[in-house]
């Protein structure tokens, strides 16, 4: 346990791996995607397994860090872990810190119902478009929460975001007549 804490204390965060993009090294919500991508590519070029002998581990850490920070849901989950020590990707923890709003769940099921009866690609595209808007609204809201250090609201929104992400994935994977299933 102690070893774990020491390790945790001295292990750099994903933010610290990109010093040009995050000179302050602190968990931050608003990020410059193109800057991050550029720095990631530069670092990968240095650490790529083909280039450096011991680069493979570093390369996969960079990869994980980049994909966590660039994705709003994963970034938010990661920030809450760093700032509040709450792991929303763990079923038990997330059940303890939040109860899902029944209205939200009903809405998810209703949209899913509507979607599962669709056989027309344009209809699915429309649903996907609405869903994208919802996701963007939450992202904007999250930015506000992190600026205001309102972590309770950030937790709630991050949980909600997960449900819309699942729907987004279902829309993306849509093939006429194919039954729905989530893989995770």
């Amino acid at each position, binding site marked *: 346990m102690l070893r774990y804490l020491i390790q945790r204390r001295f292990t750099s965060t994903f933010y610290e791996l990109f010093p040009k993009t995050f000179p302050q090294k602190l968990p931050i919500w608003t990020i410059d995607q193109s800057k991050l991508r550029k720095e990631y590519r530069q670092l990968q070029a240095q650490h790529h397994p083909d280039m450096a002998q011991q680069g493979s581990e570093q390369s996969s850490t960079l990869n994980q860090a980049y994909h966590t920070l660039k994705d709003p849901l994963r970034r938010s989950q990661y920030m809450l872990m760093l700032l509040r020590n709450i792991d*929303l990707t763990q079923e038990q*923890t997330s*059940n303890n810190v939040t109860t899902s709003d*029944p209205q939200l*769940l009903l809405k*998810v099921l209703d949209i899913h119902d509507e979607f599962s009866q669709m056989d027309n690609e344009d209809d699915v595209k429309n649903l996907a478009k609405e869903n994208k808007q919802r996701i963007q609204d939450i992202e904007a809201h999250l930015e506000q929460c992190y600026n205001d250090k309102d972590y309770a609201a950030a937790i709630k929104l991050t949980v909600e975001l997960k*449900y819309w992400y*699942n729907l987004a994935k279902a829309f993306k994977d849509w093939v006429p007549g194919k039954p729905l299933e*989530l*893989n995770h």
Partner: protein
Amino acid sequence: MFARLANPAHYKPLTGSSIIRATKRLYHPKVIDHYTNPRNVGSMDKSLANVGTGIVGAPACGDVIKLQIQVNDKSGIIENVKFKTFGCGSAIASSSYMTELVRGMSLDEAIKIKNTEIAKELSLPPVKLHCSMLAEDAIKAAIKDYKTKRNPSVLR
């Protein structure tokens, strides 16, 4: 590599549709059975006094289950069950199996069902235990909803 190819067990045809085969995780045949042929899918009118509705979500994986029970007011027996689930194969199978299990049970029996019972029947791996937990939460929520409707003064 060759040992693996030589093992005849690996040539066994997989049951279920091609969709199942394409998924990353291999499911137990009982899960595949409930997933490809889910029992009691559908909805009941939730405004009816003898229908209890439970809607639960798993915040970490984003699965949602709606489970409804229709109860005989006199005997307290669950006479009809319906569910709708948006989630992974294990969540669908867990809720489908739950509907089969509780039909014909009294509310007192149904409320005692533990997720381990479902997990065992479906041979769910540890990472999928939370799916059976979600099904347990769903039936409990449905029973609670029914009881609240029946006796609002006692249960607040």
